[in-house]
């Protein structure tokens, strides 16, 4: 999983004066719109004791609900936490609003939100049928890959279909009662599917994690496309596996050099595997004989060797880079590399 870049960004460090000034503006704004008691702003006094009583009652209620919900969900043999319910088929689950989710054998469904203003469910794999309680003000959305099925009260089935031979991967929606609205992929206008109808949508953006059991592509191009999709959707581990597979099975493929370069980048940036990155980047520099991609591979190789503190290897790689790209985009940065520590 790629590390968030937020850790490299500055943290706020406001002064007390700044915070007080901000609060003063906010307080003045809310003063006229809520029944607030103006005073010293202290948390003490009878208001706070009332708050403690309210809190104690609320906490007890929350604990009771939490325990009850946990017991109920354990009896359904489903993983549960405060936000997400995971259901593996074959199993039928009843949601809080009475809607039923019937997950077929081999299917896996994640209920990620159950609120009065939204029910959100994602089909991770396989097939599930939904019998949805009608509530006009509450959207009930089932996501499968990059396809959304939005309902107000109906019975329908959604199935993820993996690629089979020449038949593309897609999502099939079958409606037995009521009407659903289906949208995606590529932001096509939504289409309505009525009772008795079914629709199939090709789903090229395979943003679901690729399982080890899923069918393997039979040529370098497909492997390369799947690896790119996995990389773009943040599944670094899966992308590394697919690039590796491409290089192992199709070493002479036209995309092998680029695959090696992406592999090197991922290993370095997402997985912190500098040794693996060095191997991949050397392969990339060898396979891509010239051009900007070769320059990038060579520069990255210097970074990786620098990170490994392989000073001799780093200096050799740096000399190779500067010999070919004296005025390259990374030339200035090379000066800071391979220093003794």
């Amino acid at each position, binding site marked *: 999983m790629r590390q968030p870049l937020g850790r490299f960004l500055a943290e706020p460090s406001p002064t007390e004066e700044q915070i007080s000034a901000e609060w003063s503006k906010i307080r003045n704004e809310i003063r006229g719109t809520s029944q607030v*008691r103006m005073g010293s702003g202290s*948390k003490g006094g009878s208001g706070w004791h009332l708050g403690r009583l309210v809190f104690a009652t609320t906490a007890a209620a929350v604990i009771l609900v939490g325990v009850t919900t946990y017991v109920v969900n354990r009896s359904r043999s489903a993983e549960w936490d405060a936000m997400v319910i995971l259901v593996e088929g074959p199993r039928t689950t009843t949601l809080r609003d009475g809607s039923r989710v019937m997950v077929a054998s081999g299917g896996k469904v994640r209920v990620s939100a159950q609120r009065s203003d939204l029910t*959100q469910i994602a089909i991770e794999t396989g097939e599930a049928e939904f019998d949805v309680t009608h509530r006009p003000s509450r959207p009930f959305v089932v996501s499968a890959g*990059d396809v959304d099925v939005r309902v107000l009260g109906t019975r329908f089935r959604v199935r993820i279909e993996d690629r089979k031979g020449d038949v593309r991967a897609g999502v099939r929606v079958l409606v037995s009662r009521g009407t659903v609205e289906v949208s995606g992929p590529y*932001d096509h206008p939504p289409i309505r599917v009525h009772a008795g109808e079914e629709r199939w949508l090709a789903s090229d953006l395979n943003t679901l994690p690729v399982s080890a059991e899923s069918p393997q592509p039979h040529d370098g191009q497909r492997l390369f496309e799947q690896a790119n999709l996995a990389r773009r959707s943040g599944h670094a581990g899966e992308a590394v596996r697919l690039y590796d597979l491409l290089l192992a099975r199709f070493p002479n493929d036209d995309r092998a050099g680029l695959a090696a370069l992406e592999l090197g980048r991922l290993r370095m940036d997402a997985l912190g595997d500098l040794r693996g990155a060095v191997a991949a980047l050397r392969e990339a520099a060898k396979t891509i004989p010239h051009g900007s991609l070769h320059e990038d591979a060579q520069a990255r190789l210097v*970074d990786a060797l620098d990170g490994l503190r392989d000073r001799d290897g780093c200096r050799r790689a740096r000399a190779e880079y500067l010999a070919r790209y004296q005025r390259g985009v990374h030339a200035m940065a090379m000066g800071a590399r391979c220093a003794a520590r």
Partner: protein
Amino acid sequence: MSRLPLLQSPGQEEPIDTAPSDAALVADALAGNVGSHEALFRRHRNSVYRLACRLVGRTEADDLLQDCFIDAFRSLPSLRDPGAFGGWLSAIVVRTAHKRVRRRRLLERLGLLRRWPVDIDMLIAPSVPPDVAVEIQKIYRLLGSLPAEAQIALVLHRIEGFSLDEIAVKMNRSLATVKRRLSLAAAHLDKGMRTKEGKA
């Protein structure tokens, strides 16, 4: 996650932890105590400001901070789970930031505003390695050319590290929509970075 206030144990001179939980402060604020509003503000101010900076840049972060807290305190009665105040507040920040970014895009298209005036150097911590700083600068420069929703989704995912489910809840979008936005953003970034570095 709410914390239960610990009672003073016998023999202890001071309580271990008497800081009230968010749920307690929300309940007290709803009862009319401005002190609790201020306590909630002070507790969550930095996280809101940090998120605001990363979404809209430091220039607009101050305004966004105030707007979001004012909005939150006015809407406090609608908060169903007082213990989830922090998450609810960050969803307000995301949605308000989205509106601002969308408005900015419109003004840019009309020629009434310069493109994406994010002071990127102010965002980056001083101790960051130079090559990482360059990488972050490239990302933020390219963000300004993305559609508003894709930009917000990308910052929440790549910078803040939220899961897809969390992003869907904060943006009030379906999971599939979030995935589409992120795919679009990632493809745009790849293309932009290659173009800027002179790659094919």
